[in-house]
């Protein structure tokens, strides 16, 4: 039934190279394809993207569809949609994978509706259901408090994958594959959407509301200097720095970073409480974090009642080694 189907992966480009999400998608796509006895294909759309197809092959793609055209330099919903529809018409993939990125969140649902199929967004795990041979897609629901396991009843089964949730294959330049260049007609559908401007913003780190990882400091940090160490750690983890009330009162950190009843209420995946006792007003702001780690020199500190992992020690003695190890692990 699914033998002439394939797995198609949408590869994104970052700074002239394949974005890491693309390699992760290829990794998981390859695993699914192998299990189902299918072929793994990739699609890359952009401009001046020579060499990327080869890179995709090195990461596991057996076929790569390339659209290399100045009109496709930047993502535009309607034109990219048209290209994808054309490729899918040709290829008829059984499984279609995107990243949960600003492109994926836009393109995947459009395709799902256009193709009369369904999509599961922000998946963290994909496995094959033995009975139906269809993909079981696991994704967070209820803000991450629960996980839903879903199956798409039609083909292609579409999923967007959370970045960093999957593992890429080791790059192997000796892999070979087929590169198919798609000549897109220069005549673009007159789009109803016109992009007037596109700008990079010098972001001062990740916003607290969006951050998946939050490093939070309390009274024990002792001063603004200490928060610099927390900022270093949060940069490694691409997270944000927050604080309970005392550091904000003491002006060690800006008020806008206060977490708690009178500050922000967040629910990151990982919350590290450093030198923070864990008053209830503060915990109200972060109680729904998925994993909580705490470092505090007081073994009776309230924070340990809600944390998953704890170290009883002066944070000054722990943080440098911790940050170093984390840097090492993240880089792997």
């Amino acid at each position, binding site marked *: 039934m699914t033998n002439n189907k394939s797995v198609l992966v949408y590869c994104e480009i970052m700074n002239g190279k394949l974005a890491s999400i693309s390699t992760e998608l290829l990794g998981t796509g390859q695993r699914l394809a192998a299990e189902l006895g299918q072929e793994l294909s990739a699609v890359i759309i952009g401009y001046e993207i020579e060499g990327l197809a080869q890179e995709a092959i090195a990461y596991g793609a057996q076929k790569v569809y390339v659209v290399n055209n100045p009109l496709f330099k930047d993502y535009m919903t309607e034109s990219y949609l048209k290209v994808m529809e054309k490729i899918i018409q040709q290829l008829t993939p059984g499984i279609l994978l995107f990243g949960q990125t600003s492109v994926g969140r836009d393109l995947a649902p459009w395709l799902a509706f256009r193709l009369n199929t369904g999509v599961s967004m922000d998946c963290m795990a994909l496995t094959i259901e033995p009975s139906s041979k269809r993909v079981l897609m696991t994704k967070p629901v209820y803000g991450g408090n629960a996980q839903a396991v879903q199956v798409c009843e039609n083909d292609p089964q579409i999923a967007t994958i959370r970045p960093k949730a999957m593992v890429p294959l080791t790059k192997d330049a000796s892999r070979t594959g087929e590169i198919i260049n798609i000549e897109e007609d220069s005549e673009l559908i007159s789009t109803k959407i016109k992009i007037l401007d596109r700008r990079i913003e010098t972001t001062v780190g990740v916003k607290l509301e969006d951050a998946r990882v939050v490093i939070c400091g309390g009274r024990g940090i002792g001063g603004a200097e200490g928060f610099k160490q927390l900022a270093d750690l949060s940069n490694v983890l691409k997270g944000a720095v927050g604080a309970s009330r005392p550091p904000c009162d003491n002006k060690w950190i800006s008020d806008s970073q206060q977490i708690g009843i009178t500050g922000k209420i967040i629910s990151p995946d990982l919350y590290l409480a450093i030198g923070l006792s864990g008053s*209830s007003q503060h*915990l109200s702001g972060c109680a729904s974090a998925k994993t909580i780690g705490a470092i505090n020199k007081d073994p009776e500190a309230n924070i340990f009642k809600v944390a998953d992992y704890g170290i009883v020690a002066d944070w000054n003695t722990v943080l440098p080694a911790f940050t170093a190890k984390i840097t090492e692990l993240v880089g792997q």
Partner: protein
Amino acid sequence: MSPVAENYFGISGYAIFWILFVVAIVLFLQRAYLLVRFLKLGQPENRFDHLGYRITNMLIVTISQWCNLRTVKKNDLAGIGHSFMFWGFCLFLLSYFIFIGFGGGLGFDRLITNTTFEKVYSSILDIAALLILISLLWAAIRRYILKSPRLRGHTGAEAGIILSLVGSLMLLHILIEGFYLAGTDSASVWPPVGAALAKTLNGIPQNTALTVYKGLWWVHYLVILGFLVFIPRSKHLHILASSINVGLKSLTPKGVLTAIDINNKDNLGISKIQDFSWKDLLDGYACTVCGRCNVTCPAQLSGKPLSPRDLILNLKGYLFEIGPSLIKNNATALLSETATASANHGKTLIGNVVSEEAIWACTTCRACQEVCPSSNEQMNKIIGMRRHLQMVAMTETAEDPLKNLWTRGNPWRGTLYSRTDWAEGLDIKIVGEDSNIDTLFWVGCTGALEDRSLKVVQALAKLMKQAGMNFGILGEEETCCGDPSRRLGAEHQFQMLAGNNIQILQSYNIKKIVTACPHCFNTLKNEYPQLGGHFEVIHHSQLLAELFKDHKLNIPQRRDCKVTYHESCYLGRYNNIFDPPRQVLSSIPGLNLVEMEKNRKDGFCCGGGGGRILLEEKIGQRISEMRLGQALETKAEIVATACPFCLQMFEDAAKAKEVEESLKIKDIAELIAEATDVSGDPKC
């Protein structure tokens, strides 16, 4: 021999007398009329109910000077000085009518001169004049040399003029008597001071003395008339306005804020001067600039931009600035805020005359109103402006808690508890399941949802069970009583919450309610009747006191500890509940109760009232830390509270001051519960 009866350069003294009088009266009335016109710019308000009581109260309080004497303290005896000045003033005022008016201007001098009445009365006046002069000296020393704290920060020029005018009247009075006696019957021994002065003037020829006497008499008359003209143009206006203000004071229970019809778009709070009622504006006239409010206001004392005195005076100044053009433009209340501001060079009420920070800094502790001798009402004005900010201007202040009240029925966003978690395992009736109860235990949002406060309501529930009470809770059906909404100015939200609660309470036929929170207590008891909810409400301190009295609770053994009790504003000043919590504490044998200096009616706020517990305190010193400092001075080991807000504020303050180890903060219910647990530590 009245100087009025003589002729001066061919002009009749009577003519001069009456012409001067008419001029002065006209100037006085002209100003008085303008003042009344200014008042009429304000909204109507009915303060004329219970007229008999109001007039009687006004007369008694004014004449006895209770308004001043009740705030006399060891370190502030000025009220006594003022009382002498006032009583002296009354005597002198009467004398002016009799001697100058009736005797002089109307020419009935013969009927008075040399009568026993004159002898006695003028002797009394002499003594009064001396006492007044001494009081004036005392006042001047207080103001200009000692620089008394409550007199600081406001122009002393006007005060100086008044002191000088009164002083000169007294001096002139004595001089007049002296020179009169010197010019006529120098052997007289009455009036005493005048006679003494006359003796020293022995050397002066009688004619000269009489001439000086007449001259001084006219100067004295001019000064009186000058004073008359000056009064409505200075803060001395208070001699007319204060007394009236006392008579017009609010007769509702202290804790009640006015309800407004929120359907009326033009009545949604105060954003321009015409939105105040005429009574609000009268407060400005009645203010004596005594500064008592300023030195008792916790916001002012902790460095916030709120000054209760300046609030009143700045409003008065603004009224005077903008009044004339409003009158000219036939201003009615419908004149928009911007138009009013542009009538005064862009000066807005909220922002320029009163800053927003000042408006939000108020903890509604009522200390200012408690000590004001003129019965001024600062809080209504502040709440009025808060109402505008919350219901019309949609300020960002308190956004989150108020939004939470709309969607979740409580102000504690992010709480980790449900309304019934605290009651787990305590086997407490839920009224929805079993409505057969005598008393409803109104738990309150803070008691049910705030970590530290859970222990208090648990302790109270255990005690009520121990005492065999048949009570229940609303559980999930309970939502916020509405106090924070109302205090923060979201009156529409208050009326919604209160309306819903009243419906639920009435549906269960609830008659008697006990609550552990003074804010819930005040709102349920004093404010729900405005919306049709009449219930018998008691606070847990009153309940526990009752239970001890009826021997339903007792504490078998000693608990030695030194405890100081912190007065909750909403329990103490608002509802006069001072003794029950102390009785409760005294029921613990061995407990040594020490009082802070500022206690009972003078209790110092914890800083959490007026919805401020839901706001951040960024300016100046923390009010809670100041109060905790006062508690530390008593060397007590425990601060006992009867309010969940005070409890929280002090717990935070104790952490900030790093005294958590040496100073424990406990609710009285917790102390009792711990004490009745015989297995516990005999030391608190």
